[in-house]
C-alpha cells in the first residue's frame, strides 16, 4: 500500500516514454504480477512469456491508466491477468513442463489494515454469498479455471455451476453498486 503513489508516478513517467521509470516500475511490481500470472498459467515458461507481453503492453498503454478508477497495481494486474487467462486457455490441451503450482488454491491471508477500501467492499459483498459460491468465485479469480475445471473441483454439475456463477456475479454487482 505504501508503494501505491510511487507506482502511480512511475506509470505516469512510463506513459511519457521514460525507460528508467519503466525499469523501476518493473522492479517494484514484477513479483506481484508474476505471482498472479503463475497461479493462472501454472508453468514458469508460460508465465515468463506472459510477463514479457504484459510489460510491453504496460509500456505501450500506460497512458490509458486512469488513477481515478483503480490503483496502478490493480490496473497492471488486470492487464497481466487477461493475457495469462488467454494463454492458459490456449495451452490447456497442450503439452509442456509440469505444472508448478499445486492446488493450494486459497488466497493468502492479508492483515486487515492492509486491505484497501475497495477490497473490503468487494470482500463484504462476496461474503454475502453462500459459502460455496464465495469459494467458487475466489477460486475462479485466483486460478482462472474454466467452468469445467471449476465444476470438477467443486464437485458439482457444470450446468449448476454455470447458473451459480451467473447469479453470484449479478449479486456481487448489485451489492457493489448499491
Amino acid at each position: 500500500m505504501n508503494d501505491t503513489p510511487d507506482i502511480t508516478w512511475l506509470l505516469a513517467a512510463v506513459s511519457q516514454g521514460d525507460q528508467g521509470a519503466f525499469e523501476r516500475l518493473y522492479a517494484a511490481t514484477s513479483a506481484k504480477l508474476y505471482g498472479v500470472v503463475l497461479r493462472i498459467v501454472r508453468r514458469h515458461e508460460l508465465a515468463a512469456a506472459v510477463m514479457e507481453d504484459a510489460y510491453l503492453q504496460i509500456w505501450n498503454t500506460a497512458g490509458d491508466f486512469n488513477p481515478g478508477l483503480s490503483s496502478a497495481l490493480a490496473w497492471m494486474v488486470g492487464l497481466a491477468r487477461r493475457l495469462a487467462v488467454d494463454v492458459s486457455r490456449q495451452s490447456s490441451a497442450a503439452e509442456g513442463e509440469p505444472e508448478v503450482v499445486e492446488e493450494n488454491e486459497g488466497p493468502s491471508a492479508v492483515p486487515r489494515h492492509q486491505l484497501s477500501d475497495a477490497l473490503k467492499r468487494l470482500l463484504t459483498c462476496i461474503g454475502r454469498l453462500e459459502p460455496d459460491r464465495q469459494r467458487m468465485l475466489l477460486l475462479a479469480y485466483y486460478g482462472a479455471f474454466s467452468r469445467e475445471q471449476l465444476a470438477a473441483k467443486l464437485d458439482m454439475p457444470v450446468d449448476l455451476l454455470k447458473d451459480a456463477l451467473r447469479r453470484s456475479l449479478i449479486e456481487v454487482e448489485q451489492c457493489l453498486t448499491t
Partner: protein
Amino acid sequence: MPDDVTAEPDDKGVLAGEYVLGTLDADERAAAQNLFAEDADFTAKVKVWERRLGELHLMVEPIEPEPDLWARIKARLPEPAPAPEPEPQQAEPESQQPEPAITLPEFKFDFEFTPKEERTAEPELPSALAPTTAPEPAAGAAAPGEEHVPASSEVTEPSPADVIALPSLEAPPSEPAAPKPAPEAPDLEAPAKPSAGTPAPLPSFIAPKPRPAAATVEIEQKVRSLRRHLVGWRVFAGIMVLALLTLAGLVAVWRYAPERVPPELRPVALMRLAGISVDTGAPLRKPLPPESQFDE
C-alpha cells in the same frame, strides 16, 4: 453462447464478469474477445469488472520471476531514444514555480479558509447559539481550539496515498504563499470542492507519448492529479475544524452564556460543579430523571 448473451443486457454483464474471472472456455473467450474489440458497451463492462476484482490481487503472494526476464523485456522495447527527458520527481517542485501555482500553495493545512466553513456550520447549531459563536474564539475557547487544530492535521497523516506525495512537492511553493492572506483562498477553493469525489480531472493522466513539449504537459498533469488529492484533504481538514469549532463554541456558551443554552444541551451537573448557577433547574430535571438523582 454469445448469441443468447447479446439477447439480454444482464447476460452481457455476466459474460463480462466471466471473461474477467477467466471461467469462459476457449471458444467463449474468443467470442468475448471479439465483443471486447467491437462492442464499446461490453468493453466498458469488462473494465468495470477488472476494476472491481482487481483489488483481489492484494491477497496473492508475490513470486520473484527469473532474473533474466527484465533483460528480455528491455530487449523488446523500441529504442532508448526518448530518454533525454529524464525528469525525476525531484525536479518537479522547481519546475512548478514558473507555472502559476494555482491552488497548490493555499493548501498546506492552512486553516484560513475556516471562516467560510464556520458560516456554513452555524445553521447546524441551535439558533440560540448563533449570535454568541463569533466572539468566543477570542475568549478562553480559542486556546483549546488552537491546540486541537494541529492534532487534526496529524490525524490526516496516516492514510498513505497522499502523504507521500504531498510534503515534498508542497514545501517549496507554500513558503512564499504563507504571507498571502485568506481572502484569496475562498475564491479558489469554492470551485475546487465539487470535484472532490469526481474523477473528472483525471483523464489528464492520459497523454500522448512522443510529444516534445511533454515536460510542461507532464507537470500540468501532475499538478492536476495532486490537486485532486489535496481537495480531499482540504475537505477532511475542514470537517475536523468544523467539529472543533462547534465543540469549542458549545463549551464557551456553557461558560459565558449558560442561560442561552437550550435545556437539552446543558450539562447541569458540570455547570454546578463549575459554580455556574442554573436558573431553570426545576423544569430541566423533569425530562432527565436519571440526572436528577445525582443532583440531589
